[in-house]
């Protein structure tokens, strides 16, 4: 009973969350045009904004003690999400078996896409070795641990991965949701390809992005959940090996190469 007593202390947080959830769901999905495609706003976006507004800095209701249990609540929420994903995967095992080859191959896309797109942009922006830490992976817990071990978190690479982890935690889910929705509205990709792309190795990022796809393709909702869930699990399980043997070495190599180019260009400019 002790656990129950302690738990009820944070009633303010529960009330706040209930309000956030009820209002967000009541508003419901809304579509906005952006260029050739659409941005889909979902209850999860409103929830993020409302949650932000309810912080003690903005509104005097929640207290420090309430904020302290948020990590636990988040973890439990992700547990429920994972359970729901499993229950979508189960009935769709045959679909996943049929898609096993694309599922495996697209993992390479996850781990190479970050480096190939991210590093050149980072180097162009003038970022140093932080780029290696920031661009070799999406930068979840595993990546932070890896960089911490190899370079130390005080190093430039360490700063890079921490920044990436930081932004990912704050914006990751929402950005992926927008990205998935917008790319989907372009109608270039099959929804299940995008569903696979949503499995980036983070439950909340996967939920937000897959959720956006589901909102646009409700008839495929179980398949999308199953496929993204499988891709996400694959990324989580193979992440360590992919990043250690492929992404990180590639990031280091590419950075050295791009950095050399950048220096040569600087030398040329200085001479002129």
């Amino acid at each position: 009973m002790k656990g129950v007593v302690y738990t009820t202390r944070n009633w303010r947080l529960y009330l706040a969350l209930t309000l956030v959830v009820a209002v967000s769901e009541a508003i419901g999905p809304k579509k906005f045009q952006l260029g050739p495609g659409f941005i889909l706003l979902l209850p999860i976006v409103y929830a993020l904004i409302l949650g932000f507004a309810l912080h003690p800095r903005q509104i005097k209701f929640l207290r420090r003690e309430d904020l302290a249990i948020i990590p636990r609540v988040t973890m439990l929420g992700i547990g429920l999400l994972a359970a729901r994903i499993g229950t979508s995967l189960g009935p769709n095992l045959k679909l996943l078996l049929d898609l096993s080859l694309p599922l495996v191959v697209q993992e390479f896309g996850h781990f190479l896409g970050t480096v190939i797109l991210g590093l050149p942009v980072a180097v162009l922006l003038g970022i140093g070795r932080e780029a290696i830490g920031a661009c070799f992976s999406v930068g979840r817990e595993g990546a932070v641990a890896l960089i911490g071990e190899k370079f130390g978190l005080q190093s430039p690479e360490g700063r890079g991965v921490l920044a990436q982890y930081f932004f990912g935690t704050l914006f990751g889910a929402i950005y992926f949701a927008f990205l998935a929705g917008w790319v989907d509205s372009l109608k270039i990709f099959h929804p299940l390809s995008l569903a696979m792309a949503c499995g980036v190795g983070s439950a909340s990022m996967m939920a937000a992005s897959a959720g956006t796809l589901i909102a646009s393709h409700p008839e495929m909702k179980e398949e999308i959940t199953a496929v993204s869930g499988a891709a996400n699990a694959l990324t989580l399980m193979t992440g360590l090996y992919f990043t250690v043997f492929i992404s990180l070495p590639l990031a280091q190599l590419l950075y050295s190469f791009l950095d050399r180019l950048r220096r040569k260009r600087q030398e040329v400019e200085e001479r002129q």
Partner: protein
Amino acid sequence: MKTTLQSVPLLAILSLIALIGNSVASRSLPLEATPGMLVLMGIALGGSLLFTLLPFKGIPAIVYVSLLGILVTAPFSPLSPLLVPLVAKVNFLALATPVLGCAGISLASEAEQMKKQGFKMFLVSLIVFTGTFLGSAVLAELLLNLTSYRP
């Protein structure tokens, strides 16, 4: 084992909050989705227990949770005809809403830190996300076309 049991009250409260959101989202009564939610709670707790009991820690706990979810709803599971319709009443997105609400509060806590990181790193993080998404989407689409699979 102890910590799993200690989370039960909090999990129950969170599930209730999610249930309310779910009923608003699906315009139905919370009672309808309650059995499904209880099933999900059970799976979450069961998976968490498995994680604490098994010695190999290389696999994150949520993988155990989803594995358990798969096991009980797979075609070969005797429970699946019972459980699948129950959990179908619980909207996947409705479970994500409270999680994102919490994330919003956390975001406000970190707002100062965010400004220190600088705009460049913020931009890079967006590019990295885009890269991982598109890289995967392109390869998936390619393979889907090559195997000419159209589900």
